[in-house]
């Protein structure tokens, strides 16, 4: 009997499935279903997307499992990575290598984890014939493919191509079926994105000129051994280009219009994942090949800009009239936290804190934008004021918004609490109390803009609601997928240990 079932074994265990290398399939799969969705035609392909993202989630978890199981894993940031795939069989520096460590695996899991509920949400959000949803599925497929490709690439030039893939896909879904305001936001975003990747490309060109290779693993020891002045310039160009794409203060000007004017599922994808991709790349370069070049002052400059982002983004969110603008400015503020960790990177806990914040904000912000989409549908307007009395009609959605808000404020037991607590702990351990103060103040400011929304919905009477006529019904799927994302952001706080282990693997 057991013999008869032996053929099943390779389907279950990845170790015996050499051909099922998750690194490469995580890129091939989304490219495949994106193409299929395009061929199927306008408005089609939701099922292909759902099936594809589910499979990808499984692959990403498997990948994380193999990295965790490998006891001798080198620490995150080492040029030797745990999982590895030589495209074309050539190997770097002649060919392109794919590689993943705990950091890449974490980003891959987050991407599929956010994309799956959002795909469910988007299927209900874009009604048949909606011009904004006409080509949503292939665009989303290429976006996810670009993100996955970025997280597994170990080649600087290949990373440029993935950056362009992510950038153009994002601009495409922001512009989709939009009016003048949306198009203007998309164009502004496009130019920023192109200048950012252009600066990155020039940096790569200078590095190739100096060393004759663009493979990260080959470059790391070369840069550590000798760095001519040109390489400093290259590092500066690459980092500034990526900061522009990450929308770190003062480069944030393009983000609120782009994230605030797109349809809700698009805003969620952009805020939760796309800005994190360029942040991931900054982190990857910072702890990897560029590490020997960066003085402590650079880390403090990043942290200073991060702190300014927290204050300015929160201030604008507190004053915002429109609901989605409020959430978009909150993204500007929350991105600031990610840069507070740079002066602390001497401790591995700082990296864990940063990635925890990426997860916390990714899940919470996706949930928040999804919830906002429901509220805008139900109230017919994108304003905070219009939410008066919404609690009677949208209890689930407001609960979701509240949970996501909890994560952004950093209240226990959410993952946001875990992230902020770790930042504060790492800061105090190294004697940098100022960073701890900034992190605490940011939480209080977040409370102000989150409660502004909740107060309007719960406490202000919705007496004028009746005058607006019948309330449009909102599909239940929308409410619940928003809830799942927000709840995940809180529950992750209880299961944070696995994530920490993934990032601490071998350290």
């Amino acid at each position, binding site marked *: 009997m057991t013999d008869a079932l032996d053929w099943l074994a390779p389907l279950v265990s990845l170790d015996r499935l*050499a*051909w099922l*290398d998750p690194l*490469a*399939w995580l890129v*091939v799969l989304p*490219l*495949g279903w*994106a*193409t299929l969705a*395009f*061929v199927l*035609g*306008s408005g089609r392909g939701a099922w292909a997307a759902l099936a594809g993202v589910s499979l990808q989630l499984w692959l990403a978890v498997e990948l994380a499992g193999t990295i965790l199981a490998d006891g001798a894993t080198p620490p995150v940031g080492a040029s030797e990575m745990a999982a590895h*795939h*030589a*495209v*074309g*069989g*050539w190997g770097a*520096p*002649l*060919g*392109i290598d*794919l590689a993943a460590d705990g950091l890449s695996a974490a980003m891959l899991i987050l991407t599929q984890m956010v994309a799956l509920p959002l795909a469910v949400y988007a299927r209900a959000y874009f009604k048949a014939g909606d*011009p904004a949803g006409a*080509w*949503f599925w*292939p*665009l989303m497929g*290429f976006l996810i*493919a*670009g993100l996955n*490709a970025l997280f597994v690439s170990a080649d600087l*030039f*290949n990373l440029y*191509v993935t950056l*362009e*893939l992510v950038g*153009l*896909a994002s601009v*495409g*879904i922001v*512009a*989709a*079926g939009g009016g003048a305001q949306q198009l203007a936001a*998309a164009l502004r975003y496009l130019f920023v994105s192109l200048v950012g990747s252009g600066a990155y490309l020039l940096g790569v060109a*200078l590095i190739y*000129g*100096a*060393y*004759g*290779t663009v493979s990260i693993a*080959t470059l790391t020891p*070369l840069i550590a051994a000798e760095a*001519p*002045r*040109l390489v*400093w*310039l290259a590092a500066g160009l690459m980092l500034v280009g990526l900061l522009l794409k990450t929308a770190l203060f003062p480069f944030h000007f393009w983000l609120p219009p782009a994230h605030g004017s797109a349809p809700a599922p698009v805003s969620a994808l952009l805020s939760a994942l796309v800005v994190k991709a360029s942040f991931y790349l900054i982190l990857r370069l910072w702890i990897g090949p560029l590490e020997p070049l960066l003085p402590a002052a650079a880390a403090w400059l990043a942290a200073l800009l991060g702190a300014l982002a927290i204050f300015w983004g929160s201030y604008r969110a507190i004053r915002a009239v429109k609901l989605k603008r409020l959430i978009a400015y909150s993204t500007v503020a929350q991105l600031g936290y990610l840069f507070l960790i740079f002066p602390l990177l001497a401790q591995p806990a700082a990296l864990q804190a940063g990635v925890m914040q990426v997860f916390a904000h990714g899940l919470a912000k996706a949930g928040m934008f999804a919830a906002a989409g429901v509220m805008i549908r139900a109230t017919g307007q994108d304003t905070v004021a219009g939410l008066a009395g919404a609690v009677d009609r949208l209890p689930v959605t407001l609960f979701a918004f509240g949970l996501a808000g909890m994560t952004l404020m950093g209240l226990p037991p959410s993952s946001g609490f875990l992230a902020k607590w770790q930042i504060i702990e790492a800061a105090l351990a190294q004697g940098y109390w100022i960073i701890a103060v900034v992190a605490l103040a940011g939480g209080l400011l977040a409370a102000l803009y989150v409660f502004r929304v909740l107060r309007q919905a719960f406490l202000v009477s919705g007496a004028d609601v009746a005058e607006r006529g019948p309330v449009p019904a909102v599909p239940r799927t929308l409410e619940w997928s928003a809830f799942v994302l927000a709840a995940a952001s809180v529950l992750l706080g209880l299961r944070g240990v696995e994530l920490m282990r993934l990032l601490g693997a071998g350290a």
Partner: protein
Amino acid sequence: MKALAKTFVVVWLALVFVAAAIGAMLELGPAALDLRAPVTDHLTDTGVSHPVTAVLLNYRGYDTLLEIAVLLLALLGILAAGGAAGSAAPKAAHPMLQASARLAAPLMILVAVYLLWAGAFLPGGAFQAGAVLAAAAVLLHLVGLTRGWDSPRLRLRLGLAGGFALFLAVAAALLTQGALLGFPPAWAGELIMLIEAGLTVSLGLILAGFFLFLSRDLR
């Protein structure tokens, strides 16, 4: 006033950057690595004899795969940005022009086929061939012989995505055999030619689409 200050700052930064970069470039020593030798050493295993084509489709074929995705994506973005439906009825050009376009189009297709074939051992290849095909399609449109494209029907969608799908399918099939795009030396030449032929048609359609889908808003 603010605009003037911005101009001043940007120009000043640009000048400082150029001066620094030029200074740093002039003092640069030789590179640590030289990929010219390995590229030539393995050339017989790549299936093509032209080094640039070997890098483009074999050594770094993965870049090219993603790059075709970028092209398809730009077209998708153009379609998604929308515009009024209904294809433009082009003005018919002078009969003489039309006749010469009719004559030129097949010639251009021949040139494209030559460029594609020559790419294996001479400068040329799918991109250059695709651009020539696109030019032929645009020419026919400009003299009023073909209509602009409205929304892509199934056949056109298959043509637009087919080259990329074929490339991806070959990459995935090779992945099940070991490595993504790991061409076996014995078959590399044939597989690369197959991919390039598919890409030429799709690239021609995509590049032509950049014009013909846009002619929608030209009424």
